[in-house]
């Protein structure tokens, strides 16, 4: 069946490539081992393990899904089901700075769309895309729980509150 979703990252790379080996580096492996005794089942470690994998590789590639599935005795399909359900797992590589602009109601009423559109225009990318130099990915996200200091822009793990187009322009050159 033809895949109708142009943005589906698995159109070209649907299957994991066994020749690409992924293994946790020792420090990540140590953190993974510490997760296991905190849960009564292995499967419950899936979300934290995926967070860890994303910290290591920046995104969850099909090979990572197979690797994590093996670590937790799960089917790769189960892991794919979880990865694709949750917003925060990147199913394709993202830029060094993952710029997430909240546009939900409170932020929208504080002109969040202006910030979002300005970023896309200035960086010359469509929403969801990454700049050719791999520095920025701009996405629109749902409520980040910072409505009192709207509009909020999350860059990687950090919140930038009470933003504006001007403040964004001042911030961008500092993100090298």
């Amino acid at each position, binding site marked *: 069946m033809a895949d109708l979703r142009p943005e589906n990252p698995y159109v070209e790379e649907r299957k994991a490539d066994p020749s690409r080996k992924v293994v946790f580096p020792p420090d990540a492996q140590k953190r993974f081992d510490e997760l296991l005794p905190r849960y009564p089942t292995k499967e419950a470690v899936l979300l934290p393990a995926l967070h860890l994998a994303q910290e290591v590789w920046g995104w969850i590639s099909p090979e990572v899904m197979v690797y994590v599935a093996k670590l937790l005795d799960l089917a790769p399909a189960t892991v794919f089901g979880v990865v694709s359900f949750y917003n925060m797992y990147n199913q394709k590589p993202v830029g060094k700075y993952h710029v997430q602009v909240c546009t939900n*109601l*409170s932020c929208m009423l504080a002109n969040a769309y202006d910030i979002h559109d300005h970023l896309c225009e200035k960086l010359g990318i469509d*929403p969801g895309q990454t700049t050719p130099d791999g520095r920025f990915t701009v996405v629109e996200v*749902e409520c980040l729980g910072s409505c009192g200091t709207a509009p909020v822009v*999350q860059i990687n793990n950090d919140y930038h509150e009470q933003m504006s187009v001007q403040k964004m322009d001042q911030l961008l050159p500092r993100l090298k």
Partner: protein
Amino acid sequence: MEPIKVLTANMDKPNSMSIDSYLESGGYEALKASLKMKPEEVVEVVKSSDMRGRGGAGFPTGMKWSFVPKNATKPIYLLCNADESEPGTFKDRLIMEKDPHLLIEGMVISGYAIKSSPMSYIYIRGEFFYAATVLEKALQEARDKGFLGKNILGSGFDFDITVHRGAGAYICGEETGLIESLEGHRGQPRVKPPFPAVVGVFGGPTVVNNVETLACVPLIISKGADWFKSLGIPKNTGPKLYCVSGQVKKPGVYEFPMGVNLKELIYQHCGGMLDGRKLKAVIPGGASAPMLLPDEIDIPLTFDALMKAGSMLGSAGIIVIDDSACIVDSVWRLAKFFAHESCGQCTPCREGTNWMESLLDRMERGGGRQEDADLLLDMADNIGGKSLCALGDAAIGPVISSVKKFRDEYVYHVTHKSCLPGTRRYRRLDAPVGAH
């Protein structure tokens, strides 16, 4: 009514998140007192405080605890719902970032009361990375001082807490969705019954409480149920954090005894509307709550009063909309949210939320038809009450209330193919369609 500082009492201190600061202001005394009581007695105290859950449904906390079977054969679990993702709500984040030990103490006491297994979890939304870091640090401080871990303060009670980060899904704030997610699955809500108090996470009886609810527990123990009831009005008791956002001069989190007047909150405490603007609508309880008109806001913010007014207190996320905003545009944004966050399990919600979004978008783009307002109501009728969890019901709240209260504006949109004069759309229709 004057603002109070009860839940927020420690937050102004420079190093409020540290255990030293917390101990200085009498922290962990309530835990010591609780451990001298029987678990059943702690439940009774919380029950007699009449506290209602702060997560949105307003269910009495003590009663929820007492639903855990007395002779449970499987481990009992206590989960803290810190998935705060209701648009307009940002109170739990404040507690976790500024006073994490208040939450931790509340969890240990609650865990003791429900005879929880030593494993308990704070399910925090993945985006709250900073709050999760603060919590991890606070948990370690508490372990070092013997407030967490094995044989807490010599009582024989073992209890520890793990911070479990979600990964960006609104539905995981629904308690059975949260349970599924914690087990490592997609966060799709479960059929009830069995209710979590009987069969919850990992097959054991489970109590899921909101951050603010758990943070109230040490206060109830140390100051007494009668003190708690002296704040607020009967059946709507205790201190409450109200989150105000949108087009007011001073948005933020405000603490009052339950039942501050909404009009007073907006015009006196939040400084009123932005200059030259007038109030158009208020969403009183997060995105799911039906809108109120300016003449409906002279109302105490309690669970019961808002329900009577046809809306709900929910998570007390108050979003204020002024007369510069196009109501169709605002409702479209909320519809887009619910369409994105529907978990896809139940057909009416999965399909219906997307239809509502498309229809509102079409109206914004000038393609609306005369029958569209009624069509929206018809769609809402086919979503509400027809899915497993409350997301479908939440999604129709803003749609139904806005069609009923702003029908003229909808009609204007359809007839003139533009927003009502003097109102604006906050997004550009020519912007590239998001891949998100």
